[in-house]
């Protein structure tokens, strides 16, 4: 097979996979069958395109091939309950799908993947597989789950979609915020998994998550939190290269040289945050993005506005009192000159914090600033709990 055809298939796959699966799943109300049919269509493309040439409308070609496959299957199982299916069965050649029949089927697909009837820990994996076509094995590695268990969870979720007849529709306006929050959480979870990794399945995941965040903001331009998430991820992305030095060693944010941050991404992040702010619907992702925006100010002013960051964390904790936010609040407060109060904040955290590596990293740092004992022990615990080899090396070097 020529490289040109393989590249063309890969390009169509990246561009259209989610759109095609979503459209087919919506038509047939069966996500698993839509995925299978599309996989067959891609296999057929790899067989036929080298001889026949890449068609002018490759996406339409794939849609028609997958459609034929689904019809063929339907004839076999006599799935004629749905009158629309019966109607389709009479057509000799299914027409190519019109792109604008539904606003964007990928959005509906994201909402279905994050449906409350599906277990929350499957939302992100399901979305990555259904919208982006990632291999179950890749998804399993990124989420640190055995591939067999992940495959089983995905199959179960798809069966649930079919059985419960989850509708491939945009949720009603009143349930949109709750459903959107689940969609955005899933995208965020995918991004953070890939944040520290390089050259691994988790690294690909980071890029895919960024793609999904851009897509969500594009498709829901009136939803401030979608822009907030995009701004947050873009800020994180802008500092990626500066996170590691030339030898690949981890560099914490306050020690990073802002000259290594990517200006284009910071500007895009700031624009997204402005778009969000104009919509006047405050939410946790926007506050987190504002915190990262404050960190980015150091590029222009040479100073980190810790006092402002500490106040933003205070607001964030009111919205979303999760461990990450409370640990971040303590660090900002210590940096803003109140290390004793920061230690008290950490002391007040629930017991489950003690299984969370960032808690111990923060504790070691805050105790160091406060000049209080216990820094070594906290470092030890952080080293024992982190699964990031570069952070581990960094922390071991601090042991002294």
């Amino acid at each position, binding site marked *: 097979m020529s490289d040109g055809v393989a590249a063309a298939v890969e390009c169509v796959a990246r561009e259209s996979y989610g759109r095609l699966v979503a459209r087919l799943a919506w038509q047939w109300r069966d996500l698993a069958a839509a995925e299978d049919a599309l996989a067959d269509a891609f296999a057929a493309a790899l067989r036929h395109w080298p001889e026949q040439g890449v068609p002018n409308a490759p996406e339409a070609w794939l849609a028609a091939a997958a459609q034929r496959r689904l019809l063929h299957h339907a004839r076999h199982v006599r799935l004629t309950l749905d009158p629309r299916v019966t109607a389709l069965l009479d057509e000799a050649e299914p027409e190519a799908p019109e792109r604008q029949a539904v606003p964007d089927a990928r959005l509906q697909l994201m909402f279905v993947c994050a449906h409350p009837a599906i277990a929350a820990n499957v939302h992100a994996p399901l979305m990555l597989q259904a919208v982006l076509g990632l291999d179950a094995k890749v998804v399993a590695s990124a989420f*640190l*789950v055995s591939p067999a268990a992940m495959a089983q969870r995905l199959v179960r979720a798809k069966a649930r979609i079919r059985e419960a007849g989850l509708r491939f529709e945009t949720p009603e306006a009143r349930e949109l915020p709750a459903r959107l929050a689940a969609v955005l959480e899933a995208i965020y979870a995918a991004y953070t998994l890939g944040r520290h990794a390089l050259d691994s399945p988790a690294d690909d995941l980071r890029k895919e998550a960024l793609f999904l965040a851009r897509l969500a903001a594009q498709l829901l331009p009136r939803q401030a939190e979608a822009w907030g998430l995009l701004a947050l991820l873009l800020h994180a992305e802008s500092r990626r290269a500066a996170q590691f030095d030339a030898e690949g060693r981890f560099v914490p944010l306050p020690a990073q040289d802002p000259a290594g941050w990517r200006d284009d991404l910071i500007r895009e992040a700031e624009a997204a945050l402005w778009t969000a702010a104009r919509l006047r619907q405050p939410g946790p992702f926007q506050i987190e993005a504002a915190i990262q925006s404050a960190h980015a100010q150091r590029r222009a002013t040479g100073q980190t506005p810790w006092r402002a960051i500490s106040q933003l964390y205070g607001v964030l904790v009111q919205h979303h009192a999760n461990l990450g936010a409370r640990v971040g609040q303590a660090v900002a407060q210590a940096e803003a000159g109140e290390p004793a109060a920061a230690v008290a904040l950490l002391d007040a955290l629930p017991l489950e914090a003690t299984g969370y590596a960032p808690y111990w990293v923060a504790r070691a740092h805050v105790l160091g600033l406060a000049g209080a004992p216990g820094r070594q022990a906290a470092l030890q615990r952080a080293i*024992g*709990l982190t*699964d990031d*080899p570069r952070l*581990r090396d960094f922390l*071991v070097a601090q042991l002294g």
Partner: protein
Amino acid sequence: MQYMLIFNETTAETGRRDDPAAAPAYWGAWNAYVGAMWDSGIVVSGNGLQSPRTATHVRVEGGKRQVQDGPFADTHEHLGGYFIVETASLDDALEWAARAPCASAGSVEVRPVLPPPTNAPA
């Protein structure tokens, strides 16, 4: 569920134990990891092992005993230690496996422990 975490190290990683420049970081990481595991209450038992050089290897072939010094074979990775842990699920055991220093300089195998036979004589 009980799982065995089987820590495999590359030869280069095991070599850090005897390298004065690398040994403090090597032991610092392992001590912290093992300490965190014990403190979390999941450990049933476990040990690190001395270098594969110290192994003695026994095999009976056709009724004839063969005793050899050194590890079983010249493989890329060697067993460096093991722990038996009690966790609620495989996912939890995998999370601990990923935290092991050798996860990025070797590998960690996670295997469920075979339960004792139920019809064993009392």
